[in-house]
């Protein structure tokens, strides 16, 4: 009976009901689109970040994170690669040598992060390969060639074919220098990356630094980045015992991690404000409809309807409106997210160059990525917030005294 009354009351002023439903729907859709675009943007940043960095997960020696010395290296990466390859979560794993050094030419010297890679491995360092603007990428894992960023090349006045000295610490902890030739120049668009990272064949570095077959890290890339925890739990126990640990990207790239967390927090604040505004609108509408029906509510209580049932009736009206609004909002939100997931939101006209932030490159074409649990969480939040707003008008309705409500109109 309460449900029947509630449903018919909503139909009675259909325009107001539909406007309220539309407000909830638009608020939900807007929040859903923001979440999808935000999460998609973060995902792109993280993917670029781990491609530039050390993968979703990284195996390296304890202490290397705090002090990336070449003396802290994995002596025999073979058993580790075998264990990693057995995990169903892994797409690729790349043995690497990573360290800090100085590149010097006649024009000057710059501090760099060098990365020894095996160019023959499929997908290895593809973000740099795809960003090559001059010359060729590394082809032989043993030759003394170098690929550097455009900003670094500018600062050191380097062109293709020029020689440069790389000075760093070797496996024994001694300072060593080696001569390499510029084979390629890349430009990712990130000033930080283009001005600091250079790539060298891993075999050449193993020789130059006295590591034999050793590496400083193994970069692991996952099939599904959202299965990071599962991959961690699966791979960790399989690794050979020793001073090597398995690290998540969040540990190795704290700037990126912190940016995502802070951006998420600001996102939540924005969604909360939008939804609060919508909810206040719903409160106003429901309260208005209760005040307009004072007399009628007085009649209901006069003939014996209890206050609790009056309150339930108003709450049921609020729930109906909320569910309809959420349903419509989800449909709109899913549609908008699908569109921007497929075609992206092209913001390249807003900036003549690529963006970088927190050590990674931001793709100017943002693609939405809405995960089910985020959409569900939003729906629950909208539902709880909006229905909560219905409590006051429902309580007010339950307090209407029939004798006051039924005074002559």
């Amino acid at each position, binding site marked *: *009976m309460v449900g029947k*009354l509630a449903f*018919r*009351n909503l*139909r*009675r002023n259909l325009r107001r009901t539909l406007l309220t439903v539309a407000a909830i729907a638009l608020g939900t859709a807007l929040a859903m689109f923001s979440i999808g675009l935000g999460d998609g943007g973060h995902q792109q940043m993280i993917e670029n970040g781990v491609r530039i960095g050390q993968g979703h997960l990284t195996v390296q020696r304890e202490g290397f994170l705090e002090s990336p010395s070449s003396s802290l290296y994995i002596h025999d990466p073979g058993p580790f690669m075998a264990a990693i390859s057995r995990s169903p979560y892994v797409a690729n794993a790349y043995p690497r040598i990573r360290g800090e050094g100085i590149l010097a030419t006649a024009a000057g010297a710059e501090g760099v992060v060098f990365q020894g890679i095996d160019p023959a491995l499929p997908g290895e360092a593809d973000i740099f390969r795809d960003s090559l603007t001059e010359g060729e990428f590394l082809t032989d894992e043993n030759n003394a060639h170098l690929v550097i960023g455009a900003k670094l090349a500018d600062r050191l006045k380097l062109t293709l074919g020029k020689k440069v000295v790389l000075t760093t610490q070797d496996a024994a902890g001694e300072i060593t220098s080696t001569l390499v030739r510029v084979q390629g120049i890349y430009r990712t668009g990130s000033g930080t990356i283009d001005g600091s990272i250079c790539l060298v064949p891993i075999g050449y570095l193993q020789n130059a630094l006295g590591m034999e077959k050793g590496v400083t890290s193994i970069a692991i890339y996952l099939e599904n980045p959202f299965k990071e925890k599962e991959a961690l739990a699966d791979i960790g126990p399989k690794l050979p015992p020793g001073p090597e640990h398995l690290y998540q990207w969040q540990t190795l790239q704290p700037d990126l991690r912190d940016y995502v967390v802070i951006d998420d927090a600001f996102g939540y604040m924005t969604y909360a404000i939008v939804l609060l505004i919508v909810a206040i609108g719903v409160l106003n509408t429901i309260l208005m409809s209760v005040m307009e029906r004072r*007399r*009628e509510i007085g*009649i*209901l*209580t*006069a*003939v*014996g*309807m*209890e*206050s609790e*049932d009056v309150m339930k009736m108003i709450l049921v009206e609020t729930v109906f409106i909320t569910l309809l609004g959420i349903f419509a909002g989800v449909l709109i939100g899913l549609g908008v997210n699908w569109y921007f997931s497929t075609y992206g939101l092209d913001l390249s006209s807003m900036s003549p160059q690529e963006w970088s932030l927190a050590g990674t490159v931001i793709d100017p074409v943002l693609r939405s990525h809405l995960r089910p649990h985020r959409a569900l969480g939003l729906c629950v939040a909208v539902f709880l917030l909006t229905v909560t707003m219905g409590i006051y008008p429902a309580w007010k309705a339950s307090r209407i*005294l*029939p*004798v006051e409500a*039924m005074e*002559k*109109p």
Partner: protein
Amino acid sequence: MSIIRTEHLSRYYKQGPVQVHALQDVNLAIEKGDFAVVAGPSGSGKTTLLNMIGALDKPSEGRIWLDGFEITNLSRRQTSRLRRDRIGFVFQFYNLIPVLTAYENAEFVLLLKGVDHGARKEKVMALLEKVGLSGLEMRKPHELSGGQQQRVAIARALASDPVIILADEPTANLDTHTEEGLMDLMEELNREMGTTFLFSSHDPAVINRAGRLIVLRDGEILSDERK
């Protein structure tokens, strides 16, 4: 035993600094089967008296009994249940629920009482036929005339088999012909079903039909006569 009994019943309202005595020391007993009218000019306390008896309002002083049970200081929930189970109301402005049909309005109290579907249907159809509304069950109030709406209100009032029906100026908004038809109906219900009626009215056409006339002035009973 009286259906309704009041003892030193008084009701005061504050209007700014002034205290208004709507009812003063009313002692009244309504017997089963009475067809009584409370008459008096505007402001005499008629509606206030019916509100007290119908547990729509609480007295400032005094006590009230309904069918031997004191109802003076019941809780909100208790008064709701009392009105649902024991009292029927017919209001001046019909006061039907606009989103419900005639059938659903008459059925409403039975739904509140939890009566099952079959029993509800049987009772409501019989009541609507009794009040002369067969065939109009599915109409909403705005599709009915004033007299028809008031008949639905009477059916609703009768649905819970109340000990008394309180009718606050039930014919005030009706034309003479409709008013007569309605009064005929209520007299017939009083006669055949033994339903106790207590009206408030200043309409001579209603007053003339009263089996008992209680006259109020300035919140006090001026006279109380059986015809």
